[in-house]
């Protein structure tokens, strides 16, 4: 109640919008829901724009402060500005925009992911050196089984591992744990969402 008096508009907006959407799962409120969701889609896109502006402002501040990492901030701002101007004016489907995406963004991201392959193997190989308990052993054993059943080892598919063992492990054993995780995640989502919808949590600055 106290916080409601402090920021009644924000809380009212959150509750009204939220409960309207929630009630639309039950009652026929499609028109109203479409209207509100249309606003949210636009505001979310504007929020993305706002986030990028904030990132630029932060690095511009670093650039002005002349710290040791100012060069990195300079590169970030320049690349951001050029990309924004090109893509926003020409559109993402234009060749210039596609060139930026194909030759800068995609190779860098994919390379970062590729480097992770080395890191993952290295970490997994050291796992039992650092920690030897039942769960670490289970982790490593079933990771190896799954990998061994995912493709050919030395050019050959290991009998039964890829056809029988791996599917059973991934769909039954791991599937059971995954189902528990999914239910747990949904319960957590519901609890967190309801706290927002009951104004117990106000992560919008109220």
């Amino acid at each position, binding site marked *: 109640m106290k916080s409601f008096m402090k920021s009644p508009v924000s809380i009212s907006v959150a509750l009204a919008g939220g409960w309207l959407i929630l009630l639309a799962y039950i009652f026929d409120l499609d028109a109203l829901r479409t209207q509100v969701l249309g606003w949210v889609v636009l505001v979310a896109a504007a929020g993305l724009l706002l986030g990028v502006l904030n990132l630029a402002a932060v690095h511009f501040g670093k650039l002005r402060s002349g710290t040791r990492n100012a060069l990195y901030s300079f590169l970030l701002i*320049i690349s951001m500005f050029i990309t924004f101007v090109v893509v926003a004016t020409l559109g993402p489907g234009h060749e210039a925009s596609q060139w930026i995406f194909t030759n800068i963004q995609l190779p860098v991201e994919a390379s970062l992911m590729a480097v992770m392959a080395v890191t993952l193997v290295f970490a997994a190989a050291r796992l039992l050196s650092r920690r030897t308990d039942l769960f670490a052993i*289970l982790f490593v054993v079933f990771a190896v089984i799954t990998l061994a059943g995912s493709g050919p080892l030395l050019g050959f598919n290991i009998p039964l591992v890829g056809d029988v063992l791996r599917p059973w492990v991934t769909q039954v054993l*791991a599937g059971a744990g995954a189902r528990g995780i999914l239910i747990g995640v949904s319960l957590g*989502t*519901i609890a967190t969402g309801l706290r927002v919808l009951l104004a117990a949590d106000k992560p*919008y600055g109220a």
Partner: protein
Amino acid sequence: MNFADIFGGFFAALFTFLIFSYALGDNALFRMVVHIFIGVAAGYAAAVALHSVLLPAFNSQPLSSLVVPLLWIGLLFTKLSPRTAVLGNPASALLVGVGAAVAVGGAIQGTLLPQLAGSASYFSPERLSAAFGDGRFGDALGLLFNGAVILVGTVTSLAYFHFGAQSRPNQVPQRRRIIEIIARVGQGFIAITLGVLFAGVYSAALVALIERLDSLFNFVGRLARLF
């Protein structure tokens, strides 16, 4: 293969090598490339949001229907300044409130109820009678066994996330003994799940490495054909 392709291929190869240099250790070139990537990704995302979402919406709708969304957007942009940031709270509240409702509704109708029902569906009379009726006793027994494993795994995994504990004076709060035992079983299932997930992540990273090497070899091959 035009100049843009050659130039672009060169850049892509260069960036790939510089990122791979991280295997030797963190270095300045790696950081430079990462900052360039962040700038490009952010600029690209902002431009797409403007070009693909905001401008089409403003072009396709009459001004009268844009008053409210423009008001929300205007309020949101007041957050750029700390002095006026409080004015943007209602717009943030709209995003949060609607997002929470969408998440709650989706979680209930899309995951919670179907998965709870699905955990028991292995024991449904229809499925079992179908298997037994066709004389596929092995399938029926397998169905029962798998269903039992999934049911146990689901319940125990959920119990692992149960953190309610009894508080005793001057002692660390502990879960009940029975919950602790069930949670240990669930921990085993989760360890298996994480092991399988790890294998999936490694597979994905491996294919990413393969794709990068493939593109490098392609570029070199095409470049070689030019000369």
